[in-house]
């Protein structure tokens, strides 16, 4: 248990460095760099060199990286080169949006996907075909396309949900719920299909195990066998897939925040990308990495809780 966690954390350390250093190196490779962006059309080589010197961008890259790291350690991620806003504030505003979407999507995926997978495992043939078809569509549908279609249906046609924007829960809880419903469904429905497929496969595998037959031979009732014994043993793989799904959601939220015009981490990063606003991207890289690490630690904890073999390791 402790070993699992410490291994996960040990792997996370290089992950932080790989991601942040990679983005940093890319930053340094930029022709003209940040200064060219700040100066915009008035940039001349002389002016760029001058600004680089002022900003300390002419120092060796490792020195710059060290500075960034120690600043980051003190909670300072620098300022946006576009509007000089603090990166921590910019991203701090986006974080609740993105977290709302990720948590919401995971909830939708689990609440819809796992029961569907269990039910279809019980009706092997037809259930399998339905779940296979759904998961194929779930895998294939571009989520920006699904988002637009859902937005059109529920907002333009039915006019029951807002098509864009984000309402913080502090402002209005119902408003928050309405504002995230469509994006969460857009992200969560394909996830539900993927989870259903994994749940189904794992359930079928577990239900074929010897101990399930033994439980039946001992007279344990079928619902108890399915929902207490088989489901618990099948959930390990499902939880693992959930971790991978969360990593994928970072791309998903980036697209969906754009579709639904929400200022989350992803859309802030996309705007920064088109504006060459590197400090913001660097900060977003850090935030994304933290989200991934937290997700994987949670996955490890849940798996260990489910599986005594992992716990005793």
């Amino acid at each position, binding site marked *: 248990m402790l070993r699992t966690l410490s291994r996960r954390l040990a792997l996370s350390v290089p992950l932080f460095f790989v991601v942040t250093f990679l983005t940093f190196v890319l930053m340094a490779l930029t022709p003209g760099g940040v200064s060219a962006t700040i100066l915009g059309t008035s940039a001349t080589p002389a002016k760029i060199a001058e600004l680089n010197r002022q900003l300390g961008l002419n120092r060796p890259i490792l020195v710059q990286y060290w500075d960034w790291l120690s600043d980051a350690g003190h909670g300072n991620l620098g300022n946006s080169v576009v509007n000089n806003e603090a990166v921590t504030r910019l991203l701090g505003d986006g974080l609740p949006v993105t977290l709302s979407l990720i948590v919401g999507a995971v909830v939708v995926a689990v609440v819809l996907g796992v029961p569907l997978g269990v039910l279809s495992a019980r009706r092997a043939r037809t259930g399998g075909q339905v779940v296979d078809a759904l998961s194929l569509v779930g895998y294939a549908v571009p989520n920006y396309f699904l988002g*637009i279609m859902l937005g059109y249906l529920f907002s333009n046609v039915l006019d029951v949900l807002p098509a864009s924007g984000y309402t913080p829960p502090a402002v209005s809880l119902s408003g928050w719920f309405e504002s995230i419903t469509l994006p969460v469904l857009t992200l969560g429905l394909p996830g539900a299909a993927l989870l259903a497929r994994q749940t189904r496969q794992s359930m079928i595998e577990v239900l074929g195990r010897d101990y399930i037959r033994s439980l039946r031979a001992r007279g344990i009732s079928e619902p108890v066998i399915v929902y207490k014994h088989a489901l618990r043993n099948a959930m390990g793989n499902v939880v693992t897939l959930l971790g991978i799904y969360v990593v994928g959601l970072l791309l998903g939220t980036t697209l969906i925040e754009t579709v639904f015009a929400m200022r989350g981490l992803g859309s802030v990063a996309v705007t920064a990308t088109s504006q060459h606003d590197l400090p913001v991207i660097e900060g977003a890289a850090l935030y994304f990495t933290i989200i991934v690490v937290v997700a994987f630690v949670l996955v490890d904890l849940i798996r260990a809780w489910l599986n005594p073999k992992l716990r005793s390791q």
Partner: protein
Amino acid sequence: MRTPVPDAEPARPRRWRRSLTGPSWLAIVAAAVLLLLIVAAVFAPWIAPYKPTVNELGDAYQTPSLEHLLGTDEFGRDLLSRIIYGGRVSLIGVAEAVGVFVVLGATLGVVAGYVGGLVDTVVTWVADVFFALPGIIVILATLSILANNITAAMLLLGVLGAPALAVFMAGATKTVRAEPYIAAARVTGLRTRQILVRHVVPQVIAPLTVQVSLFAGAALLFQTGLDFLGLGTQPPQPSWGAMVNDGASHLGRDLWMVVPPGAVVLLAVMSLGLLGDALQDLRRGRLRAPAPVNTHAYRARTDRDEPDARAVAASAEPETVLAVRELSVATEDSGRTPIVDNVTFELRAGSCLGIVGESGCGKTMTALAVIGLLPDGVTTTGGSVTFAGKDLIGGAPRSYRTVRGSGIAMISQEPVANLDPSFTVGAQIAEVVRRHAHVRHKQAYQEALRLLTQVRLPDAKQVAKRYPHQLSGGMAQRVVIAAALAGRPKVLIADEPTTALDVTVQAEILQLLRELRRETGLAMILVSHDWGIIADSCDAAVVMYAGQVVEESAISQMFEHPRHPYSEGLMRSNPYYALNTRAQLPSIRGSVPRLGDWPLGCRFAPRCGYATEECLTAQVELLSVDTGHWTRCIHSDQVAAPGEVLAS
């Protein structure tokens, strides 16, 4: 524990017989769709009806018509033509990503898998880090520097995906490497490179194609996603992602513009997914191609005109706890291959009945049919199982539910595999107690502790807290027995209960079962291939061959004088009998016939030393040779006791 990757090949339902089918029509359609999209993109200038970037403002916002099959956009540009041309950036992008993915991932993987050791460790470690890497942010950072450089983004995507492939391929390579012919190739002095190219690579191509098609789908979604965000292909150049975005900004006017490009992406990715599934199925099929099933007419007749003579003779005497009559089991598929054929026996209260035979004779299937737990694809096709006066097979569908655990219980071969790995021993036994006795949790747990003591486990309290993986085989089998006894059953079916255990432990478990029978008056059906075990534990025995009962009698009678050549052969090949002689341990020549391939006459005739012409032509009924002694042999008077045979 390393980063968990979900099973690369999740288990599918175990079917009794799976047929090897070619690619489904869906896979063919998918391949055709992909081919069409690729050809259209490559030959766009010749195929597209309009130029993709020429504005015809007069034709703006059209819905499909003969002139514009998919309608037009806000500049009056033909959507079909833009989709045909737009496929080009997607095609190139996906090709770039897949190229890097394959070259990097497969090479690293095959080398790591073949060389193993440090290289493998490093690759796994790097993959673990990359696995959790939020790739989108790295690619966004790249695009912020190399503005709109979709090539760089897609190449990077390939790099980011490669370690996962490397780990997968390393696994596949390790499997191939373990094959004997690789060792043989090494011994004959082939160079590593030659072995890799000639022997390893061809074997791992198949799993690779599956991964590639799935990755290509993800890459296409990614590429169109970047175009959708406006980070890739720039207007007025057409691209599927940008077209969706373009359409989205005119939603207020009409939804249509979004549909064709979105649907094309959906269709393309779906086709890649279907192709991946089909490749996977093909591969599985090849790996587990079923044994061809012989369907020629030379098959045993299973439906009888007359009832089994013995079934009529055996009347339900009061002391009989379990009566099995003319029980038949067959596969559920169209072939209806018989597995168990008209088996009849009965079990008296407190007694032990042995079922003996080689593997594939239907012993276990008989046992499973008795407790109503046949595997999927196999079903009871006739007969009855009467317990406590009720027919379980012909009776209400729920009748088994009231009987299992409290009436009939079962233990089987692999003790650890028969315990749920996620719950403690105590919890699992207490659950059974609660199910049958309706007591409180605490009482149930106390009863579980008592049961653990009853199966002679020292320190029951400690054992109760353990998980199955913390038990030895012998302990686990005691726990399994305790769980089986928890419902206070009258009958225990023990299917090869000691086969998976060490010899010393075997004796202990058999001793325990004998003692428990004495203490509780439990009747037992003991399934075994080992005459020694049967002789020590049972009062009577049923010998099964090719799905049939071939001999039945009290155990002493059977050993004194077996009346079926198969029983005799089994006894003679038992080491127990060979101890006194210097002769080589004899074995029965030939092997058990395959399911559904049973000879027409006496099923044992092809392996039998006594067989005559008569044996080959007509089925043999069970014949009474002595009181309570039945045999399915017309030459039973010639069969000698093994002791006599060996002495001569």
